[in-house]
């Protein structure tokens, strides 16, 4: 049953997403898109985009959205619940250890390895999305509008640390509208 599999998969994803919502992205990519093929990669990116723009933590939004696409409202609820369930156990366990021993030394060792690892994983997804958006596989060419948007976005994000990602995405959407009507895409 898909709903049950959805629960298992998101439970596992919730168990492994160290560092918050963005860590879930490579995990969802591997489990749901590559392994199961329940979603296309492009659709997945659309879901992330929307999750980025809606209120609430991005991890929850993504779980809800993916669950919705795969199994309707029930899928959304199941995916989200499964995603946060591991947190309950682990957080309370860590809090107990923290209270008892006043430090999480053993955990620090684990985290010192996992944190850089997650950065590498997120980088991988970022690169995949970049390639998908900028490189046109069938025509073997680069889409310069997309490349421009990417470079402009990255420049803005690096220059203005506090800029809202929503602005950037909306700006990109606006350019998309213009480009569409100018027959550039």
């Amino acid at each position, binding site marked *: 049953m898909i709903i049950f599999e959805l629960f298992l998969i998101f439970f596992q994803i919730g168990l*492994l997403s160290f560092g918050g919502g963005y860590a879930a992205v490579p995990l969802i990519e591997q489990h749901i898109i590559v392994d199961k093929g329940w979603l296309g990669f492009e659709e997945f990116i659309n879901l992330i985009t929307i999750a980025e723009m809606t209120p609430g933590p991005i991890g929850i939004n993504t779980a809800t959205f993916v669950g919705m696409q795969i199994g309707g409202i029930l899928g959304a609820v199941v995916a989200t619940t499964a995603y946060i369930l591991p*947190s309950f156990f682990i957080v*309370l366990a860590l809090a107990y250890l923290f209270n008892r021993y006043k430090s999480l030394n053993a955990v620090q060792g684990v985290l010192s*390895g996992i944190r850089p*690892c997650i950065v590498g994983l997120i*980088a991988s997804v970022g690169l995949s999305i970049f390639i998908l958006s900028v490189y046109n596989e069938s025509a073997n060419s680069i889409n310069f509008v997309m490349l421009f948007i990417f470079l402009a976005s990255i420049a803005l994000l690096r220059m203005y640390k506090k800029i809202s990602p929503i602005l950037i995405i909306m700006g990109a959407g606006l350019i998309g509208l213009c480009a569409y009507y100018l027959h550039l895409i």
Partner: protein
Amino acid sequence: MKKNFKLYFTLFSSAFYISAFTIGGGLVIMPLLKKKFVDDLKLIEENEMLDYMAVAQSAPGVIAVNTSILIGYRIAGFLGAVATVLGTILPPLIITSIISVFYNAFKDNEIVAAVLKCMQSAVAAIIINIVFDLGGKIAVQKKIFPFIIMAAAFIAVFFYNVKIIYILLGAAALGVVNYYIMIRKNNNSLNKEKEDGK
């Protein structure tokens, strides 16, 4: 009984309100939680909150949810944790569900597709920017071990599609090993200093 219910409801509604008005992910919600539960409601001490944030970042999953669990549990036990978490996840659950209905209705529209396609480039930039931010924090430490892990993880997943759980387990194991090597190194140099001091 009534008093308890009011407490649960306070937890739920506070978390609900904060979550509904926070856009974006990660640590954005932290100052808001602090303001509400430490400053306004005075249910938690500031240094307790700092401890919770540390633990919340050490556990997997969404940081906002992890913090909600700790705050709720501290204030009103397990049910308190459930109430707070429910408050945190209900806004995104409801809003995202509604939006997904619209998304499915419009996604085949040519204009919407073009707009979404352009947004992809922006999202790629946002994600890569996060990599720069997180990577920068690691680079500041000036140690080679994290770089090796970062590069290895990237190569493993991008080129070889290794299962992420194995990459994480490997990184965790290496992390523990490296951590204890560092501790021994520090101890050795401390001992050496003592000897030289004599």
